[in-house]
């Protein structure tokens, strides 16, 4: 495992440089937005990565909460299985919005549930909490990048830094929730911090659809100067985007890997320190 890390790091570096070249030189220049559109190759992969990390955090948090009780674990596993079946059925039986393929819905449903079981299989007990810490923190880093590159793109293209657009605002709220998640972890004085944090993550996940929905309605009531959208994407652009996404995913895995090891070591050190502190001589009354 340890030898794998540098190999993976070198591969990621190579992939990132190729992706950068593809983004800056390889991809064609967009007609209406010009060169600035190339921010897109950094902005969008970062956003997808951040959302994926937050999703993993949510699954890990649920896992942690139900993992405290074997009965709850069993119930949750059945529910997860039922959700997978329900998404597949819904994908093929219910009418879907224009342009959404049933296979896409079915695959994503199965993927999320599969991820849940993968986490359960490979991250038992306390490890799942380490995973939650890691993904939340790295997710916030990526989300911060999304929030900064977003306005840098919007300013030259739309003429404004910020608009209360659905995606922008939802991302901002998600960022706020996860910053408060990290704060809670830092300020907690409980020996059961993971439980508190996991509960907050579940609340955050419940909040996101409500945020998305409310802002969506809010925005349709207040038309904003959002331009563009629609139309098909140049295949070379799509290629560049996907390469960049792959590169950023690898980079995220690399960072998570380091963070994960750091957290494991910190906890070990804490335990050793705690036991050592007890051994210092003290006197009976």
């Amino acid at each position, binding site marked *: 495992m340890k030898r794998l890390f540098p190999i993976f790091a070198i591969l990621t570096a190579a992939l990132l440089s190729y992706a950068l070249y593809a983004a800056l030189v390889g991809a064609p220049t967009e007609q209406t937005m010009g*060169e*600035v559109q*190339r*921010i897109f190759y*950094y*902005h969008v992969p*970062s956003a997808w990565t951040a959302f994926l990390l937050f999703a993993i955090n949510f699954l890990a948090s649920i896992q942690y909460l139900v993992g405290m009780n074997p009965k709850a674990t069993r119930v949750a596993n059945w529910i997860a299985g039922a959700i997978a079946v329900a998404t597949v059925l819904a994908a093929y039986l219910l009418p879907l919005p224009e342009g959404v393929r049933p296979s896409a819905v079915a695959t994503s449903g199965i993927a999320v549930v599969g991820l849940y079981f993968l986490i359960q299989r490979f991250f038992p007990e306390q490890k799942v909490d380490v995973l939650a810490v890691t993904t939340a923190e*790295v997710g916030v*880093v990526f989300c*911060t*990048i999304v929030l*900064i*590159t977003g306005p*840098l*793109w919007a*300013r*030259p293209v739309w003429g404004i830094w910020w608009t209360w657009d659905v995606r922008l605002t939802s991302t901002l709220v998600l960022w706020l929730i996860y910053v408060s998640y990290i704060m809670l972890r830092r300020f907690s004085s409980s020996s059961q911090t993971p439980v508190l944090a996991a509960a907050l993550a579940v609340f955050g996940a419940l909040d996101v659809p409500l945020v998305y929905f409310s802002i969506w309605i809010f925005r349709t009531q207040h038309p904003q100067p959002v331009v563009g959208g629609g139309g098909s994407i140049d295949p070379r652009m799509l290629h560049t985007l996907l390469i960049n996404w792959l590169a950023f995913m690898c*980079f995220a895995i690399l*960072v998570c890997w*380091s*963070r994960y090891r*750091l957290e494991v*070591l*910190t906890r070990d*050190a804490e335990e*050793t*320190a705690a036991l*050592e502190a007890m051994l210092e001589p003290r006197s009976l009354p």
Partner: protein
Amino acid sequence: MNFLYAAYAVTWIIHIVYLGTLLRRYTRLRDEMKRLNKTED
């Protein structure tokens, strides 16, 4: 065009700063481990 470079710069600055904090935490942890091992002997 400036915006493009600004965006790229910001992205990497944030990543590097975060990696820097990770590195700092690592070194601090290593020091502590060393100290703990010493007291154990």
